[in-house]
């Protein structure tokens, strides 16, 4: 029961994170100024952070399940 709930929470978090990433990417790509150097760097930090946190969450999920 607990494992199922935790798995569901994790899947919800992944979907939420994907949704926000798509929205942020869409707005940056569409409304960023030409020759903007900082915008792509911000996006890179956002994606690297998101992947790292998701990976760590997945690891902690494995610890709980196994």
């Amino acid at each position, binding site marked *: 029961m607990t494992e199922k709930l935790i798995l569901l929470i994790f899947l919800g978090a992944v979907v939420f994170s994907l949704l926000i990433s798509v929205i942020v990417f869409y707005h940056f790509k569409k409304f*960023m100024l030409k020759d903007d150097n900082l915008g792509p760097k911000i996006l890179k930090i956002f994606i690297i952070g998101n992947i790292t946190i998701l990976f760590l969450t997945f690891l902690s999920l494995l610890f709980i399940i196994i």
Partner: protein
Amino acid sequence: MIKFREKEKIVAVKRRHYMVFVLDLLPVLIIFLFLGGALLYFLFFGLPEQLASITNNYFDLKKEELVFHSVFSFLIATLFLWNLSFVIITKHYLDYWIITDRRTIHVELRLFFSRFYSSIYHDKIQDTTVDVRGFLPTIMNYGNMKIQTAGAFKKFIFQQIPDPHETKRILFEESSKYSKIKNNHE
């Protein structure tokens, strides 16, 4: 993306001062530090008896298992806060004012998928005022700059921009140049 007129040159791009951005992110940072502190406490001293017994009533977990669950909960909360921070950053970064050699453009991200866009030609500017109010704006040198225009869109406000006096000077310079060019053409 904004479409500029032919041969239109960007003179300055202004965004809100970084202090405004830091103040917007502060609640997120405080929540993160609070959660991080709570997690460290759980890791070093274990879950408080009362909390452990409450959780056990619902999930029937051992004390050691609860620590893993605390780490998982902390990471889920961190993911949420991380995404929230970038929603704030996106809002902050995609609100800007552009001064070109012909006009001033304001682009604002009100909500996601909702944008406000307006521009005024420099010959329509009647008056500009700078408003630096409060302790932080004074020492960090940021504030509002209001442009009074002759058109239907009466006021144009640069909100909490860094160095508003310098921006006013740039705008004044550009509007004088533009007015001269326009008068020569007429």
